[in-house]
């Protein structure tokens, strides 16, 4: 009798207990220091190698269009990319196409660059936000000072030290597009012909991008938090991607464990009944 | 060329559309002329009737959610089913709420539901405030629905139309308050969540069959028969095409013709070559 109530109670467990377990599991996994070896897909390797091939002092454009909604997928990518750029001592500029994306990327970039001794205006700059990506890419391909005018701190582009010797996108070596939405087509269609693109989509957007990988219109891709984790592994760092993928996979394990437990309880209950 | 801008991108498109249109229209005409057409009863219908029965016993409200369905064919279909449900519950004076995220659907729903009460002979029960536009933003809408389902402790929850990620928010909240839930959607990616959280789920174009069965309209019945013919054609094309691909190779112009945008011209070139040689 005692047994039976246990099993049936377990089958009809209060869902709030489940919610709590999941929340605790995620916080725990975020803090955990476990690192599992990833499978590195070719697209991630070529992403890494494209940045590795650049020379110190080359300039890179980071197109960052994500905000709170897709933080877990795009922030690990953003952080890992910036770390890689700074490790290679590359110059970079950031541009966003929505206002929240501007705020979040500027705040993060300030934090990350401070750690590496990069100076805003000298080693990097944030171009703020432009509503129309097509116009922006077209304009910057001709003349950045004209198209963007001033950076996010309202310093005119001509006065930025980081932009010395750089007139338009034609002088850039690479674009990194970090995005949850369709910004890639504008970059592919309207960039200067020789400008290389690497891509950081969310997992939902990745499926559509494989054709661009095949056609070499993008040279590499890291997909969501999982891609960031694989990329971090190549960089030899433990960043958000690794923390997040741990949290994701432990939640998978948690769900599977509970499905098995639920079935076990059902089985035991049936047995004790018969 | 990746997609169809015009029928000219591959005239095969025009051919197949005309075929489907003919299959549908001829059968509609047959049905209207009095021909008795058969349509299989799908289990989802019993589930709908059962849910209506249980909610009338409880006396608590019934909710109907056409999802984020934009105004178009699916919205009309969903409203047909909601009208049927409303007519049934009107007999027991069970209150209803129809919650929508689309203002045009909202406008049309007002008329449809008021018609339903008229047809059921209870125009006095119709309350315009029971049909609510909550928000056109996906998750603002979801938050409103989740709050309402819990506050009113609904007895039954019907979800028909097009759904996105918010589907599980509705279905789990409904489950929490113990509502009987029936969902029907053509959004394949949301079906698993409905299956997991609802009492019954009407999948894919069973959704279209449901309203045909409910209304017994000759137009809908005829259309269903026409659609089956079109499915038969698609099935045969797949089998025939696979055999042809195996014989001719998958890149042969004949295979390209069968659906690929831009497949018309290589086919015509190939045809003129073959004819010229013959």
């Amino acid at each position: 009798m005692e047994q039976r109530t246990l099993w049936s109670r377990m089958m009809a467990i209060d869902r709030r207990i489940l919610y709590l377990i999941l929340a605790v599991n995620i916080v725990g996994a975020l803090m955990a220091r476990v690192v599992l070896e990833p499978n590195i897909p070719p697209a991630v390797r070529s992403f890494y190698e494209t940045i590795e091939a650049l020379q110190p002092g080359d300039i890179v454009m980071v197109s960052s269009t994500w905000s709170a909604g897709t933080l877990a997928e795009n922030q690990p990518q953003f952080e890992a990319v910036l770390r890689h750029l700074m490790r290679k001592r590359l110059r970079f500029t950031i541009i966003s196409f929505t206002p929240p994306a501007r705020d979040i990327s500027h705040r993060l970039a300030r934090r990350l660059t401070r750690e590496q001794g990069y100076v805003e205006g000298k080693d990097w700059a944030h171009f703020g936000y432009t509503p129309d990506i097509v116009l922006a890419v077209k304009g910057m391909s001709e003349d950045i000072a004209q198209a963007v005018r001033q950076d996010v701190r309202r310093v005119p582009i001509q006065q930025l030290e980081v932009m010395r010797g750089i007139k338009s996108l034609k002088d850039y070596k690479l674009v990194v597009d970090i995005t949850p939405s369709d910004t890639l087509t504008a970059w592919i269609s309207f960039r200067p012909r020789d400008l290389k693109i690497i891509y950081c989509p969310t997992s939902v957007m990745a499926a559509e991008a494989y054709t661009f990988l095949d056609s070499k219109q993008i040279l590499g891709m890291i997909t969501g938090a999982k891609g960031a984790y694989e990329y971090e592994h190549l960089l030899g760092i433990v960043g958000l991607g690794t923390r997040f993928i741990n949290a994701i996979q432990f939640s998978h394990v948690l769900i599977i464990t509970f499905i098995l437990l639920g079935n076990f309880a059902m089985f035991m209950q049936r047995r004790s009944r018969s | 060329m990746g997609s169809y801008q015009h029928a000219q991108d591959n005239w095969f498109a025009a051919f197949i559309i005309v075929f489907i249109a003919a299959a549908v229209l001829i059968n509609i005409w047959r049905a209207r002329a009095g021909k008795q057409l058969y349509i299989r009863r799908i289990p989802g219908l019993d589930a709908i009737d059962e849910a209506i029965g249980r909610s009338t016993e409880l006396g608590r409200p019934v909710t109907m959610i056409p999802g984020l369905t934009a105004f178009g064919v699916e919205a009309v279909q969903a409203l047909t089913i909601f009208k049927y449900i409303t007519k049934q519950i009107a007999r027991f004076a069970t209150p209803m709420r129809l919650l929508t995220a689309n203002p045009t659907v909202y406008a049309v729903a007002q008329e449809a539901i008021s018609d339903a009460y008229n047809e059921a002979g209870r125009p006095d029960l119709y309350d315009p405030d029971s049909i609510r536009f909550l928000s056109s933003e996906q998750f603002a809408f979801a938050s409103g629905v989740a709050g309402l389902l819990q506050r009113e402790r609904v007895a039954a929850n019907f979800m028909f139309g097009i759904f996105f990620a918010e589907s599980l928010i509705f279905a789990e909240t409904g489950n929490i308050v113990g509502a009987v839930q029936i969902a029907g959607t053509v959004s394949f990616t949301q079906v698993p969540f409905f299956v997991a959280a609802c009492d019954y789920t009407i999948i894919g174009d069973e959704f279209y069959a449901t309203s045909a069965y409910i209304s017994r309209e000759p137009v809908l019945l005829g259309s269903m028969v026409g659609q089956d013919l079109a499915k038969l054609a698609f099935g045969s094309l797949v089998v025939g095409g696979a055999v042809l691909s195996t014989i001719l190779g998958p890149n042969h112009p004949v295979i390209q013709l069968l659906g690929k945008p831009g497949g018309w011209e290589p086919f015509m070139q190939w045809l003129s070559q073959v004819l010229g040689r013959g």
Partner: protein
Amino acid sequence: MFDTRENIWAAFWMIGAAILIFALIPLLQTLPPRGRYLLIAFVTFIAGLFFAAEFFLPVDEKTGKNFLTDPFQRLQGSLQVITALSLGLGTYGLIRLHLRNAVQRRAQWGYSIVLLVSFVTMAFFSVWNTLAEKGLLGVQRTPLLERAFTLLFDYTLVQLDATMFSLIAFYIFSAAYRAFRIRSVEASILMFTAMIVMIGIVPLGKFISDSIGLPIMMTDEMRTNPFALETILYSLRLPEVANWILNVLNAPVQRAIEFGVGIGALAMAIRLWLSLERGIT
């Protein structure tokens, strides 16, 4: 704002059009019910015919357009305009409901006040912000706008939205726990597939496969010899199985559903276009 000739002309047209269109209503009102039905069916048919003809009529080889293509784009814009107008209709319904709640002090009317205040505040800053972004009507960005909009949009609306979305994570857990039981053949199939995919797509799947000693790499030899033990063992790796389920088993299922839905939608479109559907319009 009406400082140029263009603006005056545009305003002239708009006022004229409005007068004409609204003057039409008393005239329309004289129609008998049958005439009204026919008028609606006619408008429906013509609207459909335009878009259908644009698709079916041959196009010019060079431009890829036919004579309907340019007006087609304008009309699509007009459809968006009408949809935007209908949004006003929905918002009107929402505001009317809550105004009434507030005025008549119905149950929970305080929440209606919250809703109305949020609406008015956000509407004000949203319109201001959109105008300023486009530089319309001489509207400028100010620090007040920047701060208020950041607070209302980035730190309230966006946060609420993202949190609401993330509720699904909790619900997916409780739904899986409750629903995935070996009760019937169908439920069991659903459960096993979901579990294999869940474990196969995370790095742990690779880790487990490695630890039980399954081959790590697909060699060229394995590719040419599919029935060798090594090849079979390799294809039992969890990531491979998960991928195979997603790409080989799931894809045709999805394709079949898509075909059914597509054909159904096309049939429905034809019925609506020809006003064969009774009941709604």
